[in-house]
């Protein structure tokens, strides 16, 4: 599916859970529980995505084309047959990048207004 820039802009700002899920599957194909654990670890326990929220987000993200289900399984000894694995799509990467860019812009604007922020 071809996505234009306006498709990307339509999705911004991303809900926090969506952004974090995108980050989680940016490097590796992950299954649901791994995504939850990854987010929890990365945020130092700040953000804990519940199972329900995760799959509701996953369902929507699949429809939006941000992620896709992958058929490639990891090494058989690590695999659990029942699990579904998700991978970021090029469109998902574009959206995640745009969201990151949006946040940088926000920080820049806050600084320009004299707001003292720590080092990024």
């Amino acid at each position, binding site marked *: 599916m071809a996505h234009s820039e306006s498709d990307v802009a339509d999705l911004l700002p991303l809900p926090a859970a969506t952004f974090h899920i995108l980050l989680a599957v940016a490097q590796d194909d992950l*299954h*649901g*529980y791994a995504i*939850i654990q990854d987010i929890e670890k990365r945020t130092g326990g700040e953000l804990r995505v*519940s*199972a*329900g*929220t*995760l*799959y*509701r987000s*996953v*369902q*929507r993200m699949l429809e939006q084309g941000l992620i896709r289900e992958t058929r490639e399984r990891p090494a058989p000894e690590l695999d*659990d047959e*029942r*699990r*579904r694995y998700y991978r970021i799509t090029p469109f998902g990467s574009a959206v995640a990048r745009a969201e990151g860019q949006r946040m940088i812009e926000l920080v820049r604007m806050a600084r320009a207004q004299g707001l003292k922020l720590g080092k990024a």
Partner: protein
Amino acid sequence: MRFYQLLLLLYPKSFRNEYSTELQGIFRARLRDHIGFIARLGLFLETIADVLRNAVATHTDILQQDVRYTLRTLWRTPAFTATAIVVTALGIGVNTAAFSIADFVFLRKLPYADADNIVKVMLDGGNQLSPVLYREWSTSTKSFQAVGAYFNGSVNLVGEGEPQRVERAVVTASLLPMLGVQPLRGRVFRPNEERDGTGAIVLSYALWQRQYGGDEHILGRRLLIDGSPGVVIGIMPSAFNFPSRDVAMWTLIAPQAASDDDHSNFYWNGVGRLRSGATVAQANAELNGLLQRLKLRIPDVYDTTLAFIFRMRDEFSTQSRLLLLALSGAAACVLLIACANLANLLLARALTRQRELLVRSAMGAGRERLVRQSITECLMLAAAGGALGIGIAYASLPLLTQLVPSTLPIAQSPAIDLRIILFAALLTALTALGFGVLPAWRSAGKVDLSGLRDGNRAGGGRRERSRSILVVAEVMVSVVLLVSAGLLMRALLRLESVEPGFRAENVLTLRTALPLPKYDSTAFRATYFRSVLEQLRAVPGVSHAAFITGLPMVMRGGVWPVVPEDQPALARRAPSASSRFVTPGFFAATGIPLKVGRDIEETDDLAHPYVAVVSESFVKKFWPNQDAIGKRFKFLNDTRTVVGVVGDVRVRGPERPSEPQVYQSYQQVINGQSSFYYPKDLVIRSTLPQGTLVPAVRTIVRRVDPQQPISDIRMLSDIVSDMTAARSVQVRVLGAFALIAFLLAASGIHGLLAFSVSQRQREIGVRMALGAQRSEIVRMVMNRGVLLAVAGVIPGVAVAYAAGRAMQGLLAGINPADALTFCAVVAMCGVMTIVGSLLPVLRAVRVDPAVAFRAE
């Protein structure tokens, strides 16, 4: 784990199918991580919260999607959408209107405290209680917590502005407190206040607003009522309509009236509040026991008297009940037809959309999602229709209020309140269920991938069959409605063609009720009547004017026993006749034909023998085939001589038999008689428009007596048409319902045939290519239409006959199997079939075989 699986049921099925294994996997993993009771309890609580929140959110997501999708598809097919909404709105609108009236009359509690325990008392023959009987009853009863009595009458109210004629209820002090309605301002009567003779007055909200502009300082104001002073002590709220909605004030029964000992003076209406635990039957038995004891003492009066006690809620006629039931039934029929029509529309659309549905289902939308989508669509259509329907109900209410019986102590018109809105909402949901959800559920299960193959004939025999059944049902119900409306219309026409016995056109009537004791003297009254009439007759354009004690069809009682001098044996069980006192010229003014003898004349006064003009049925009853002139009979305590015979008048209206009539001279009444004996209604035959005549009458009356009010200004023709007003409203409403049903059924036939022709283009093309004649094609299509119509008409006729039997009480003697009505309806159905088939037939014969094949 079991627990978690149950929780997952809260999610939409499509979501569950997709993710429940994953969700369970995660839950299992977390369960392993949480050890110990507290930790697990925490996990459970957290999980419940999570599932609840996300289940609701997922459902909302789907709903939003479906709503967006539905709006898009409906927007693309505006004709379908508009039809569906209008049809639903008609169905829901007429039912909401019918329900709001039926609920108001049949179901809703009367607006009194603990209203179920309030009963009314009546003696057989519709008689009321006498003051002395009321006293005996009130002191001896054990079934009642409280009892009260009242009687109605109108009075002249003199205060500021024009003197007014208003309806008043004269009550015992116990009555208003017993009903338990708090006054809006001031107070109601205190126990036993009637003994004090304070002249306390309680005003109705309407009178307070109308006459005194809602003046807050009205309490304590002195008013003159029929010449006697009174003082305002309270105002009742606007919803208080006891004993009827035209009553504008309540005053106390005078002490001397309350202590009247005449057992045969029945004019009080008894009302009581049952003690808790007491039943109507007990109260009835108790009162009849009292009557039995009185019969031993006073056999003349209590000869065969029986008492009836009934709940105040139930005081309306069988006819009112039937009128409303017929209306509600008809409304339900319209809704049924509307649902059938919509179901048909949706089925037809489902057939044309089958490919789309198949594509969606092939793309992974489960049956549940497709059904859910249809439900959303139906609910949205129904909701739009329902909202419009409430508007229709609101707009049609003023017409329907004619059907609210005036005997119930309630307002004229119900309000559209939350209860009605809830009913409409419920109906909307049921409608959506009826026309959409069930068909959607049935069809969604039968998705058949073969439909995807191009050129496959969409739809199958089964669907066409269910569509045919719906059309047949529509035809059937519309036959029932058409016949019912037809029968009622025939009944109305019959009643309207009943000759009232007078010529009502161009006769203005109004009331100048002379107050007592000012007009106690007969000679004084005669001066008033003569000066008013003389001046009136001098007005150009006025041909006749006269006074009478009660207008026909307005005053229906006033019935007294008649004993002809030559038949004294009749004395024990004397037949009765209605008594009226008139001024000369009454028959000319109302157009009642004088058959023999003479009119009442100015010389018929107290110095001359008492005379009477009687009606033809009077002569037929007492002196058949004899010359009645000069015959004498005892009537109203005096012997009167017949001087003239006039035509009969339908005193009780076109539907009920009337007693023979006796007219007496207004001057042959001794001084100090009750107001029953002197004329109050003025009838004027004139060619002047009402707008010119009424001010002229006002000026004349004011010139004769400046304190004399004028009331009840009406054309005599309006009085006559009022007799059938409720019926004519019902006929109009039912006629409209029948018409709607008829059109819907016609469109049902048309829709089905048109669809089947368009689906069978290829077949028709093949037939024509093989040499079929156009006439054969026409026959093929017409046969379908005729078959549908006949299948609907036959059971329709049977049900219509049953419906006619059920409402026989309304038919005024028209046979429920009235051949004319039935033939007309069957003929209409024939026309409907032909018209409905016309376009499809034209389309079928225009099929070009070459084109039909090329489309493949």
